[in-house]
């Protein structure tokens, strides 16, 4: 009898314990991750106001009507009427997309090379991909300012070798933003690709080569299709954060480099228009919902496969 009671007590305690483990992070994320988005959505439906906080409340109390809800879609309409926003969204997608393609083109051979290296070299090379990843993002972007300046190191080098006779205008242009993006996000592309290519069964490639397939054909028909999960993971890890990037266009881009992260930042800090900034954020989130959900699904699938 007492044994039964003890085991009941144990299962009860176990359940309580499990609840505790889930409860704390769950509550934290609900409060500091989910609720903020709802508030952003709420404020995107308000009108700007010269007050503290600078927007109209959702629930308004008045003597005549009592409690009423005040919401407006003006901010969203404004985003679609002013071509600046539309152009900026499209430009962000374009910049992020092209940067992702370049990251893949540059990152794939590197990941492949690391995965095919003999063991001690492989670990050192991997470590060398990871080190820049731990060095401050801001400082790595800053490093390019000195290189790309009109009187900078790259122009100096090119003039010295005689390849050009006029310094190139590089810093504060879209080209500089592309270079900064590719440079900063390259490790995000290499690491998932490497993780995938490392597991590739090399016997498949040998079999294909034995049967007379040329290297390009082996790559096109076997290596690349098998590495698709790594390619997709790497592309998503580059593309999604790149769309909302702020630091790179702010430091390397010109005044005409339109990117949505920068626009949101300026709308908020310079124009102090919180409702419009919120609407910009909500539309950006809508653009990213599909890729983010897809990314989550893949992550979950991968974990299930591991289990």
């Amino acid at each position, binding site marked *: 009898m007492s044994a039964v009671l003890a085991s009941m007590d144990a299962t009860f305690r176990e359940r309580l314990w499990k609840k505790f483990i889930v409860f704390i992070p769950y509550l934290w994320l609900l409060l500091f991750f989910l609720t903020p988005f709802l508030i952003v959505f709420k404020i995107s439906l308000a009108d700007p106001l010269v007050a503290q906080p600078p927007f109209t409340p959702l629930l308004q109390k008045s003597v005549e009507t009592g409690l009423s809800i005040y919401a407006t879609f003006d901010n969203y309409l404004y985003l679609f009427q002013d071509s600046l926003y539309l152009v900026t969204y499209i430009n962000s997608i374009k910049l992020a997309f092209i940067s992702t393609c370049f990251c893949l083109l540059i990152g794939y051979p590197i990941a*492949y090379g690391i995965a095919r290296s003999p063991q001690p070299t492989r*670990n050192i090379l991997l*470590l060398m991909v990871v080190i820049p990843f731990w060095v*401050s993002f801001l400082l790595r972007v*800053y490093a390019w300012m000195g290189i790309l300046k009109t009187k900078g190191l790259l122009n100096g080098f090119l003039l010295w070798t005689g390849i050009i006779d006029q310094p190139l205008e590089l810093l504060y242009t879209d080209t500089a933003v592309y270079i900064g993006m590719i440079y900063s996000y390259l490790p995000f592309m290499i690491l998932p690709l490497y993780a995938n290519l490392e597991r590739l069964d090399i016997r498949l490639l040998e079999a294909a080569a034995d049967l007379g397939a040329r290297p390009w054909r082996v790559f096109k028909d076997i290596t690349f299709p098998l590495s698709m999960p790594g390619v997709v993971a790497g592309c998503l890890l580059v593309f999604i954060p790149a769309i909302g990037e702020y630091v790179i266009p702010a430091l390397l881009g010109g005044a005409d480099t339109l990117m949505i992260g920068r626009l949101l930042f300026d709308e908020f800090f310079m124009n102090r228009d919180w409702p419009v900034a919120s609407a910009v954020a909500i539309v950006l989130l809508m653009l990213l919902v599909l890729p983010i959900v897809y990314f989550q699904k893949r992550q979950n699938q991968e974990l299930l496969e*591991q289990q």
Partner: protein
Amino acid sequence: MKKRSRFIFSALCFGFAFLYVPILLVIIYSFNDSRLVTIWGGWSIRWYIELFNNDNILDAALLSLRIAMVSATCATIMGTLAGIALTRIRQFKGRLLFTGMIIAPLVMPEVITGLSLLLLFVSLQNLIGWPGQRGINTITIAHITFSMAYVAVIIQSRLTNINESIEEAALDLGARPIRVLWDITLPIILPAMVSGWLLSFTLSLDDLVIASFVSGPGATTLPMLIFSKVRLGIAPDINALATILITIVAIGVSIAGWVMHQQSKAKKA
């Protein structure tokens, strides 16, 4: 086959040159005597001396370190709980939402996270009068929130690779769940917790955008200070600061890599 490996070799050389040349140039030019940052004026350590006499930079660095310590520790605890929940508790209410909230911060653009957290703090302030003055507290909370997702994912991938049967055996033999957690699960995931802490620490030390949103007057973190300086152009003392930070990171990562290498060697032997 030979032609191809030559292609791979040159790709590796080009790739690593691309990753490292900018960093090396910053290091070299931090020893440049000239104020004109792209003209070489001989070797000197004057920018390092100037850096250590700059109280603003030192204050900002201390503030960033404090925030990074606290937020990394909290994020590791919370992320570990979340990672255990994801792998060891199969069913609970709202599991799908929970997994979503763990994975989403990994790819969420910083501007959105920053804006939404600031608006939360402003609303809370109006509602319940907390958190008062924005600054260290709000930055720390923001950093915990995005770092814990990274920790959770690291713990999760470690735990899925570990056989659950040891924990089950202990439970069958009558060990209490808390004891199983303390004596079995935690030692297994300890290396993952350490790397999670280090990653959270770096992420916090590195963050500019989110901190700019949720910070208030008076709390300037190191990235915020660096950004306001380099926005106006290149600054030689920032080169010196970058060199110091890069050296610390390189030493830290190399030690971590060496330790892991020794461990895997010991396991094989």
